[in-house]
């Protein structure tokens, strides 16, 4: 049985809830309260993850931390169709890794701005975080525009989404909570709509569902 150490308002945890749902896997949620009780810094939790970060999974006792690592692990192990992380396709894997790193880097920009505005993380330099997020969004918007030109719906692929899309989705979809408007990124907005229409997509507070697709 897979256990997910989860916090409702965390975008990184949302990545794991998404893939678990997309892959239709059963799992048990263990709520670790980030705020206000800071349970992720508690003795108990530090034994599971000494970095004191969420998410963490335990798959029959095998413990893994870091959202991107967990995405790779779950997709390689449980995706029967082999599309979310096509292990054998080296070019694809390379590209996916590149965008996984991009998704991870949003933690220091869009996610930090959101923590600042929502949960009062004063130590972040909010203006810097926002500016950095905008330059990242610009790159992704351009990339997605040209992907569409090639007839591709997704960050790394034409037909099926990969874990790169999952890694980028949450903090972009939640960016407005950190005061980062998406008005200048039309290709990103279309991609968000497509993403929300993936079968078995789930929402989290702050993310609206899309209507029925075309």
């Amino acid at each position: 049985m897979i256990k997910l150490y989860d916090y409702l308002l965390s975008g990184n945890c949302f990545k794991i809830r998404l893939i678990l749902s997309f892959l239709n896997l059963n799992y048990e949620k263990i709520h670790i309260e980030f705020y206000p009780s800071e349970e992720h810094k508690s003795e108990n939790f530090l034994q599971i993850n000494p970095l004191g970060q969420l998410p963490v999974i335990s798959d029959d006792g095998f413990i893994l931390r870091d959202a991107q690592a967990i995405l790779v692990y779950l997709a390689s192990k449980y995706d029967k169709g082999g599309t979310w992380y096509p292990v054998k396709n080296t070019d694809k894997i390379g590209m996916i890794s590149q965008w996984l790193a991009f998704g991870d880097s949003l933690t220091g920009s869009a996610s930090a701005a959101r923590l600042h505005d929502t949960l009062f993380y004063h130590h972040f330099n909010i203006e810097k975080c926002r500016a950095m997020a905008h330059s990242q969004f610009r790159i992704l918007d351009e990339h997605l525009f040209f992907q569409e030109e090639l007839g591709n719906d997704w960050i790394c692929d034409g037909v099926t989404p990969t874990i790169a899309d999952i890694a980028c989705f949450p903090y972009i979809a939640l960016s407005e909570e950190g005061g980062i408007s998406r008005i200048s990124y039309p290709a990103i907005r279309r991609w968000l709509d497509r993403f929300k229409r993936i079968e078995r997509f789930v929402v989290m507070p702050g993310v609206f569902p899309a209507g029925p697709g075309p």
Partner: protein
Amino acid sequence: MTNVRENNLRKIICMEKNKIYALRKKWFPIASSSDLVKRHVFQAQLLGREFAVWRADDGNVNVWENRCLHRGVRLSIGINQGSELKCQYHGWRYANRTAGCTYIPAHPADAPARTICNNTYPVKEFIGMIWSGEDAIENDFSYKELSKRTVLRPVPINAPNDLVQKNLLNYYSELNFDGLLLNDGSIEINLGGKKKILFFIQPQDSKLSVVRGVLNATLSDEKRYHFLKEQNFIIERFREKMEQISENLNLEPMVAEIEEISNDLGEPPTKEDCGRKAELRLHVSERILTSRDVVSLKLKGIEGQLPTFHPGAHIDLHLQNGLIRQYSLVNGPGETDHYRIGVKLEKDGRGGSQYIHNNVKVGDLLATSAPRNNFPLRRDSLYTIFIAGGIGITPLLSMSKALHSMELDYEFHYFVQSEKDISFKETLKILGERVIIHKGLSQENTINKVRKILQKPGYYKNLYVCGPGPMLEATLKIASDLKWADDTIHFEYFKNDRKINNDSNFEIELARSALTLTVSAGKTILEILRENGVDLPSSCEQGACGTCKVNVIRGDIDHQDVYLNATERANKNIMMTCVSRSLSDRLILDI
């Protein structure tokens, strides 16, 4: 000292404002056509004003203010349902084209008594772009369509419009492309060999502009990709340069004032205040015989948009021969550029249908009322049963189309005499399996069938019936025998077949206007009210449609209508003033 500064500042602000007012009259591109993918809502901004831009499934492009009139929520986070836009906050629905609100879920039993319309802006689709302007003047649009074209990736730049405008030409000339600044503010860049890019700068906000370009040629796939990449690269470098220059420029965002709504919308509705007026002029744009003796008329407006309707609504047709007749609209959600009605030839009717069948033709002009709805559809039902007899199909079709598009559960029973009597076949086909047609049943078999259909009243289940009098009466009786609650049964008569007795004499007291009037035999309450300057809306004036309803404070009502149900009658506090009268000497009315 400060005063001088402040005054100067005020002057500058004033100048800025005037500049913005002038710019608002111009057309600007606000999106690429390709931005409006199916079922998407595009967030745009022009001169500080945000727009929600969406393409309906019929291809129409809507440019609306990005603010739900209810509680101000951005409509760009709403849902494009193909024919309507649904707000995320309270689920209000707004119709394609008119932006009129078609449904307020918090009050599912009401048809909105007034039309709430979001602000819409002019729109054009040209050279692969969507154009708009808050106060854009229709005839000022001067851009010509390009038969061959390639639209560039729009590049947003965090810099003021005039700066970008001034420098783009220079920038390209540094790259050895010559160009021109055209009168209309667009910039033409010569790529050589007749190839030209036309650039438009969209002033989004005081420090945000979008460079939108289009090439006057269509390129093959591979070439196209490279061309777009190449131009994007150039403009992105240009962007960096512009953003560097304006980095330390501190400009206040532009202010888009919020327009006040009409006074009556500021308060929750009280009463409608329109008589039997023909406010609309419509022309017949299509006339088809949809079954043996039913013509379907498509009516279009002469200019501007038609008022919003809700499923179950009817319009009054003021015929050239002086007759006024009611017809239900069959339109589904989003079908807002016309009204469609079905008229059955009544051989022994009062002449309205004969007149329409014999005289009305394509191109004719008809005077009609705005749509009015006394037969509203609840959409908070878990299951809805429609029972239509003959031409009673019309309001129910409109309703079922609405439920269909919202993916709510329903079944639709249509009783007709024969195959030849089936109207609106095309629409029925779209509704598919939910439609069950019962052909040629005897009276007895019809009753048995209806009893079967109504077997199980239930939790959040509603029934809608419309058809000829005897069938309606039988259905209502069966429903009440089978214990359907009164408020789950909804019906509409075409006409009141009862014999009206208008022999009584009595007084009416108008509680709010402190007026006492006498109604003598032969006159109706409605007539007496009108004669005394009290304008009450009405439509059929025979106790069938429910428009002339008023609340009664005291007195014994002599109900003669077919609109109210048993509970409403038993409550003794509403009446139809066009036919009903008083059993007591005096009625006190809440008007």
